[in-house]
């Protein structure tokens, strides 16, 4: 724990705040790219039913690929073409995006599929156009699953961005890899604790956001606490 509480490690270009900032920057860029690819694709496959094979096949195949191997392979392939920092930033981002797409894609697909057909029919009966059904009914109803996909994607990204320190990407993984190289276990522990806290924080943040933005009608939260449960308790007066 000594490393963590030494004020010298909290300032400067390789200080802990800088490392956290880098870790977040790479993670959020990768998450944004993955979401821009996976959410529209998931909606398209969910609504049209085309390309379902992508969902089952892709998700399993990518899980089996070892991320360390993929990272190193891409660095060796890409870095000769980009002599600057991009030589390792680009491969890292590609791997992070590749790992984040499957959970968002499968969950968006499953979310759109799971929307109650009666709700879609009701909207159509009320004169909603296809686009409006999508934006006002299907998307809000699938939001919980989409967000849970984003949540597991972000955890995957934060975890893998740590590993990418091995191929010299910045971020909290630096403490783990540099600590290993310098035989400085307390530096490694500091990195491990900070990365774990970062992951826990974002996991809880996304859980909180999910509770805030998901319509209460979907989670039955208000129904439980509101009047429906009440009548049983009121005494019967004849």
């Amino acid at each position, binding site marked *: 724990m000594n490393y963590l509480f030494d004020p010298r490690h909290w300032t400067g270009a390789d200080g802990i705040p800088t490392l956290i900032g880098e870790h977040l920057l790479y993670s959020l860029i990768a998450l944004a790219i993955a979401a821009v690819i996976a959410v529209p694709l998931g909606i398209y496959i969910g609504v049209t039913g085309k390309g379902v094979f992508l969902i089952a096949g892709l998700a*399993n195949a990518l*899980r*089996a*690929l*070892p*991320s*360390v*191997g*993929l990272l*190193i*392979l891409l*660095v*060796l392939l890409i870095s000769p073409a980009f002599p600057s920092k991009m030589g390792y930033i680009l491969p890292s981002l590609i791997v992070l995006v590749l790992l984040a797409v499957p959970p968002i894609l499968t969950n968006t697909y499953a979310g759109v599929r799971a929307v109650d057909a009666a709700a879609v029919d009701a909207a159509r009966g009320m004169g909603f156009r296809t686009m409006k059904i999508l934006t006002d009914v299907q998307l809000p109803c699938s939001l919980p699953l989409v967000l849970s996909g984003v949540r597991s994607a972000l*955890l995957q990204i*934060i*975890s893998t961005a*740590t*590993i990418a320190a*091995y*191929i010299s990407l910045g971020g909290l*993984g630096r403490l*783990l*890899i540099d600590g*290993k190289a310098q035989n400085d*276990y307390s530096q*490694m*522990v500091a*990195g*491990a*604790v900070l*990365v*774990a806290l970062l*992951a*826990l924080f974002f*996991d809880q943040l996304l859980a909180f956001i999910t509770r805030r933005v998901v319509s209460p009608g979907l989670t039955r939260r208000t129904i439980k606490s509101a009047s429906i449960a009440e009548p049983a308790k009121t005494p019967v007066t004849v």
Partner: protein
Amino acid sequence: MNIEWLGRQFDTIVFLLGWHVLLTVIPLILGLLIALPLGWWAHRSRRIYPLLVGVAGLLYTVPSLALFVLLPLVLGTKILDPLNIVAALTIYTVALLVRVVADALESVPEDTVQAAKAMGYRSWQSLLKVELPVGVPVISAGLRVAAVSNVSLVSVAALLGIPQLGSLFTQGFQLRFFTPIIAGILLCVILAMILDGLIILLNRWLTPWTPKVVAS
């Protein structure tokens, strides 16, 4: 691909593969053995379920490299001890399977449980001979996910210098040499597919009553 290099390194690669198999399979079995009673407990108690599933979810969020580094503090082991990897992956497997086992037992139709009771099964007999077998497909689906992700997670331990297939990646990186990296990736994927296939077979063998055409 440099086939000649692979030939020369054959013994080393087999050694690394052996370690990789051990580090993947032992946590898988330990994790399942721990998750079965915990999942049953979560299934039995409405209060325990959110607690166990919540703790499992929190453990699952801890990044693998961080867990590998933190476990020596808890276990008192050396940083290079393969035991850390076994413990970390067991934790991940348990975290994943507790919920799966609880949901599998939950998925057993109430009629089936009642029928077992009516035929004179005691509750532990019903659990072992009726509820668990009926829940096998759900549990093995969870086990497949755990097996495949364990194969990938084990290779992360190479960054700490613990020998397994991931060592081929770090070696290839240091030598700027593609052959070990590609060999390592291929062996990891093949290992994951073999474990996945074995669990599918085990599932079919344990559930002979299901139709022969099983969608994977």
